[in-house]
């Protein structure tokens, strides 16, 4: 018995165990204070689905040895451009989503390739450079949103008449296109089938890629470049490939996120998007050098569930300007705890 417990502890790791217990307490509390558990569960499923692709986007970069890709906004920008173009031509439904993807992915490939070239010159400093590249590209794109010659009156500023709006409604294009695909209800829980399926599909593709010769090569290049060299693997090429894949997934990720959210967020919206993703994968047990799809799923689930479950519960339990503070302390505290604990399972 003790051994089984030990094993569970080792696999799950203490931080995740603690977060899980915390979550459980909140869920019980939610039931006690009469919050609708099915509704919470539904929200949670949506949240996990919409954020998970962005978290998944970190995997190829980690595998290729470039660390946490904090330059996710690069890919996000490509996705947004794709979406904006699709809306400009007043496409709707699945077509708009497909066109957005069709425009965004090639862009992401080009951008990812160029960024990969940069990363190859700065081995070892990828994360901090990525942070600032992300910030700078978001500001650069602000100029683009303002000056780009889009005409669709649904998107341009209501008063000025030029430049894109801060938030663009997706009602006429691909709002909830994945969430509602094959959506059904179990009891009162709404299942965003399409969203989860789409995420599952992407996970499967990433996993499958890991099993190919190139995928193996990328993994080796990331975990031991000298070893990779001795296997005849072109490390720089693999790092570029990892960056490109990460950028592509980020651009798909933002489209998945936006279709679920219902709005596109331009300007400063994407500025900090890489950080929750990074926090999620770290909580999931990954490190900047090693990560697996399981870390993505566990991490996104734990991180998002804290955000979904904690605020309403605390709102009911404590009155006054306390719950947000409490939530901030708890969620950051948990991340800190995860960072500051050396756990066996994640080693």
């Amino acid at each position, binding site marked *: 018995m003790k051994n089984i417990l030990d094993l569970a502890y080792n696999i799950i790791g203490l931080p995740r165990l603690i977060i899980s217990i915390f979550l459980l307490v909140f869920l019980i509390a939610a039931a006690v204070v009469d919050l609708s558990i099915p509704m919470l569960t539904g929200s949670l499923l949506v949240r996990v689905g919409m954020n998970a692709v962005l978290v998944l986007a970190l995997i190829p970069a980690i595998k290729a040895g470039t660390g946490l890709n904090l330059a996710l906004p690069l890919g996000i920008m490509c996705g947004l451009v794709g979406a904006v173009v699709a809306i400009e031509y007043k496409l709707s439904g699945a077509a708009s989503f497909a066109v957005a993807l069709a425009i965004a992915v090639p862009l992401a490939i080009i951008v990812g390739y160029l960024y990969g070239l940069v990363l190859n010159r700065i081995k070892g400093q990828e994360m901090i450079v990525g942070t600032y590249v992300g910030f700078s590209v978001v500001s650069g794109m602000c100029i683009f949103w303002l000056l780009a010659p889009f005409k669709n009156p*649904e998107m341009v*500023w209501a008063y000025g008449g030029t430049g894109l709006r801060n*938030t663009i409604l997706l009602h006429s294009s691909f709002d909830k296109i994945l969430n509602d695909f094959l959506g059904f209800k179990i009891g009162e829980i709404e299942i965003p089938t399409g969203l989860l399926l789409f995420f599952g599909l992407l996970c499967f593709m990433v996993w499958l890629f890991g099993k190919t010769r190139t995928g193996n090569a990328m993994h080796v290049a990331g975990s031991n470049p000298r070893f990779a060299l001795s296997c005849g693997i072109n490390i720089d090429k693999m790092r570029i490939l990892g960056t490109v894949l990460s950028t592509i997934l980020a651009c798909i990720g933002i489209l998945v996120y936006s279709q679920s959210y219902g709005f596109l967020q331009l300007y400063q919206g994407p500025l900090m998007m890489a950080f929750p993703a990074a926090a999620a994968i770290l909580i999931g047990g990954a490190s900047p050098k090693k990560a697996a799809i399981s870390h993505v799923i566990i991490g996104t689930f734990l991180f998002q569930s804290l*955000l979904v479950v904690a605020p309403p519960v605390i709102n009911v339990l404590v009155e006054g300007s306390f719950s947000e503070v409490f939530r901030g302390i708890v969620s950051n505290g948990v991340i800190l705890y995860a960072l500051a604990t050396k756990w066996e399972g994640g080693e």
Partner: protein
Amino acid sequence: MKKLLVLTLLIVFSLFVFGCGGASDDAVVEEPEGEEAALGYKIGIMTGTVSQGEEEFMAAVELVEKYGSDVVVHMTYPDKFMDEQETTIANIVSLAADPEMKAIVICQAVPGTKAAIDIIKENRDDILFIAGVPHEDPEVIASSADICINPDDLARGETIVALAAKMGAETFIHYSFPRHMSYELLAQRRDIFRDECEKLGVAFVEVEAPDPTGDAGVPGAQQFILEDVPRQIEKYGANTNFFSTNCAMQEPLIRMALDGGGIYAEQCCPSPYHAYPGALGIEIPEDKAGDVAYILEQIEAKVVEGGGAGRFATWRVPCNMAIIHGSAEYAMLYAKGEVGKQDFDKYTETMSAAAKGPVILNGLDAAPNFLMFVGDSIIFGE
């Protein structure tokens, strides 16, 4: 070696600055911007970029177009104004560095405004400062700025609840977070809300949302609204009024309130241009840009279409635009030497003109130059 290098860099740089600076002085004189020299004054307007909100920026642009870029100097404060106070200060001070600058209108008066005004006042006390929608504490900012102007949050505490009750609200939900509740006016208004609700028999519910400047970010805060509104409607029924103190939350709030059949009496910053176009996906053809009547029409159509007739409202006039226009006109008068710094009657006049209707300005007890006003509401679909 390094010291030498640093020193050389500094010398080269300072030579250059002096050199260019001198040249630019000449340039100012030489450039054929003769009319400006003839006018002999300038006014400065400081707003946010469009990513903070369109109205203020566009209002300033209109003024620049009206009076020419040699009279009205338009500056923006940083998007991350909470973090970049120093830039805000430097930008305001740089406006005042021009000896012809006679008045500066800042809207919104983000943190750093008071510090900037104090710095300028050390050397020049001839400049008029008007702080619109101050973020700093009313008494603090009022001690430095000549005129502060804000929507009357205290009066709105009564008007919004009254409007909501009129529209059939049984519950009043107030979304905010601790940082906003440290704003004196916002905190007081919440208390007034609570009292008013009690008077009118409306249940007042205070809900904490994630702070958009915190770790969850704007997306986290917006996502919370998306999830919470249906929850609240399920709990309290559709006759619930939703109010949030944060601009970024308005769009999802309107969207979800409309979808769920809720009530939405007013935004945080009341204006037809605030959040409604984005939330409802309003299309504005190019020739209708800037047409307030048109947009009211459009919003009305969408609200009715969404089944929210008689349950959604806003001010007829974009509030921050009125502030900028009214204040700038007053500033022009001041620059021409026609009014003093605190001629509240004249200011009421220019504000009324900008708001296209009579405006009543109330001063705070503790700070009479902290003026507040309430605009006229329009309920869509009535």
